């Protein structure tokens, strides 16, 4: 009898629970007409992997291949035309890099001795002393652990000993060209390696890992995107501008593009990419993105609206920075527009960092640990 009662009670509880769920299956709104929309994380991950991330990596590979070709031509025939072409290709590759530098997850994550894609392909500040030593001795040690002696920004260092093509050609002797060729080939090969996984099986794995735990695609992707925003704010703006605690004044030599003086373009492209990733693509195209994911949860619509307003403030702050002189010089003279940009970027951070992860129930950190 006792057993029968128990089974009856259990069945009733199960029935009640299932029944209530079937009744309330679509009812996850807040009852004030601001209903969260249905959202499927598989579709979300698939859209990012197949329409955006995969293409970003392919585009970077293509840009770095073109750069290597242009550098090969320059090395075989060092003249003004070929140097200008190499510089144009460098600009394309570096801008494409701003659209890819957040992909430090999956194939771009640290693995064994290989560091993240960010550290492998374009780390800075450079160790110019060691670069010069390598050039002088012609011992390139291209696979050593000194990543600050190679990568995209070292290519810039060699291509831009002077802004003027003619003056630069005078400095670009054979030993420098040899090193340039070696590091551009290394860059090309490394990018191809990263790209191979992205064009192969990784997108399927990325989509299949559809949870929200620390190691899930959603969390890894989010964490690296957020980290990229912090790199932009801290390393590209605050530190060279001397706005970091303990700095006595600006340290403009810490800008990303210290030699080509393209730092503002790079920073702007970096921010535009952060925004594009947030929306899942260019803002004029209706693509599925983090904003849609947020709108699917209660309070998300409000957060998206506040974020959009603050993104606009950051864009306005970027627009306020004069295009001439260079960002480096503006930082040197402590131009007030830089501090305005920092403030606006800092205001945007909590929306991206704490509010977004909190609403979506994402693990905000790679460093796993237990919780209760």
């Amino acid at each position: 009898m006792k057993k029968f009662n128990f089974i009856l009670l259990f069945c009733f509880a199960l029935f009640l629970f299932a029944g209530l769920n079937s009744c309330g299956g679509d009812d996850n709104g807040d009852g004030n007409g601001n209903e969260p929309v249905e959202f499927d994380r598989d579709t979300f991950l698939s859209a990012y992997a197949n329409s955006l991330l995969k293409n970003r990596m392919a585009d970077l590979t293509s840009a770095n291949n073109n750069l290597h070709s242009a550098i090969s031509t320059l090395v075989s025939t060092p003249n003004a035309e070929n140097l200008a072409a190499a510089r144009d290709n460098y600009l394309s590759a570096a801008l494409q890099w701003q659209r890819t530098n957040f992909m430090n997850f999956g194939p771009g994550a640290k693995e064994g001795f290989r560091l993240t894609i960010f550290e492998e392909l374009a780390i800075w500040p450079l160790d110019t002393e060691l670069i010069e030593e390598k050039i002088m001795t012609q011992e390139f040690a291209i696979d050593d652990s000194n990543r600050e002696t190679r990568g995209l920004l070292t290519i810039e260092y060699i291509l831009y000993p002077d802004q003027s093509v003619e003056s630069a050609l005078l400095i670009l002797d054979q030993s420098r060209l040899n090193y340039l060729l070696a590091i551009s080939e290394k860059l090309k090969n490394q990018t191809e390696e990263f790209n191979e996984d992205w064009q192969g099986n990784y997108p399927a794995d990325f989509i299949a890992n559809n949870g929200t735990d620390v190691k899930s695609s959603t969390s890894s992707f989010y964490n690296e995107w957020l980290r990229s925003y912090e790199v932009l704010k801290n390393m590209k703006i605050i530190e060279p501008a001397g706005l970091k605690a303990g700095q006595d004044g600006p340290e403009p030599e810490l800008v990303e593009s210290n030699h080509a003086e393209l730092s503002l373009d790079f920073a702007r492209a970096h921010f535009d990419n952060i925004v594009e990733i947030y929306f899942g693509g260019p803002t004029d195209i209706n693509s599925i993105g983090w904003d849609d994911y947020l709108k699917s949860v209660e309070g998300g619509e409000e957060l998206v609206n506040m974020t959009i307003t603050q993104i606009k403030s950051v864009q306005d702050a970027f627009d306020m920075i004069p295009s001439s002189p260079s960002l480096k010089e503006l930082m040197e003279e402590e131009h007030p527009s830089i501090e305005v940009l920092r403030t606006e970027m800092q205001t945007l951070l909590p929306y991206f960092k704490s509010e977004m992860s909190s609403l979506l129930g994402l693990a905000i950190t790679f460093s796993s640990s237990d919780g209760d």
Partner: protein
Amino acid sequence: MMFSVSRFVALGWIEDHYIAPVFHFKYYGFSWVEPLGIYGMYLVHVLLFLSALAIVVGYRYRIASVIMFLTFTYTELIDLTYYLNHYYFVSLVSFLMIFLPMNKAVSLDTKSGRTSSINHIPAWMIYSLMMMIAIVYIYAGLAKLNENWMIHALPLSIWLPAHDKLPLIGPLFKSSITHYAFSWLGMLYDTFIIFFLLLPRTRILAFVSVVLFHTMTGILFQIGVFPIVMICIVTIFFSAEWHRQFLIRLSQWLDRWHIPFLLSKEVKKYQLSRVRNKVMQNSLILFFVFQLLFPLRHFLYPGNIFWTEQGYRFSWRVMLMEKSGTATFFVKDGPNGKEGQVFNNEFLNDHQEKQMAFQPDMILQFAHFLGNHFKEKGMTKPHVRVESYVTLNGAPSRLLVDPQVNLMEVKESWIHKDWILRY
């Protein structure tokens, strides 16, 4: 414990938690506790593992239980950001275990004659463990009796949809009915499960629900070994006969492998001198009075406990809120110095930064660390302030701490922190 230590080492957490960080957040009154360095910390974990093993086989139990309590509690005291309710629970239980004769039935200690074998112990020894478990569950249940949990199903309505891809049950987590069902059932479970475990008629059903509940929370949330700990420890509520039958079956099973496992059939009672018995009972009463009162200290502080977190820790408020923050520190030398922003990641790992950003006492500790750091770097009178935007249960961020306050002038204490802004 052995599994937990192995898992900790395998995940590389000794380096991540104790060695790599530049700065460790301290427990109030335990600022002297420091990590021992890489070899020292590995040695501590080896000792912890071996002491747990010694307790399992009953080898020099008393020493082993003291070592387990000290080494485990030491590792927990190193960094406040790794505070977990279940670690605190394990520390308390391992402390109680020092005084319980757990090696006096089937153990190497009895086999070797180091101690005599018994099969009866005073009831208060069982009740002390039951009481500890009851405090955890009932306080955890009562803490859920708040508006957000009961009326708005928060934070489960944030956490559960994130698990919508779990096989079979995943789709249910999108429904608000599920969020409310989990909230209410969770509250009812925590508050009343002890009573159902105490009643012989409902004990089996209650135990099944313990297993289901903790398995479910183990699947949904990253809570480590907590589900295993709770499932195993509630067996203390089973009768002495149930435990005896269990041991007989275990003995029969081990016999197949020719492993001796002798159970005494005659009644042998645990003998304690009257004085010792009295001392232990009175000490336990004091221990439990403290355990009952300490979690209630938050009533002494004004403001929303979920926001200020004054009295939040050590009060069995388990999985109760979704809170996250972004804390930006600014330092200047003197009131008129040039202010600079701190990059938290130069001093803290991701986990530390995440925990610090929404907990006022940690914000204060980090501010003092920064002040001292920049003093060493040459600043004469560092001023440190913080802009800490915190979101509680998915609400839009608000400033947690007055951003104008120079935190270097604030001292940590038990009194109310009036520099925390009202929620």
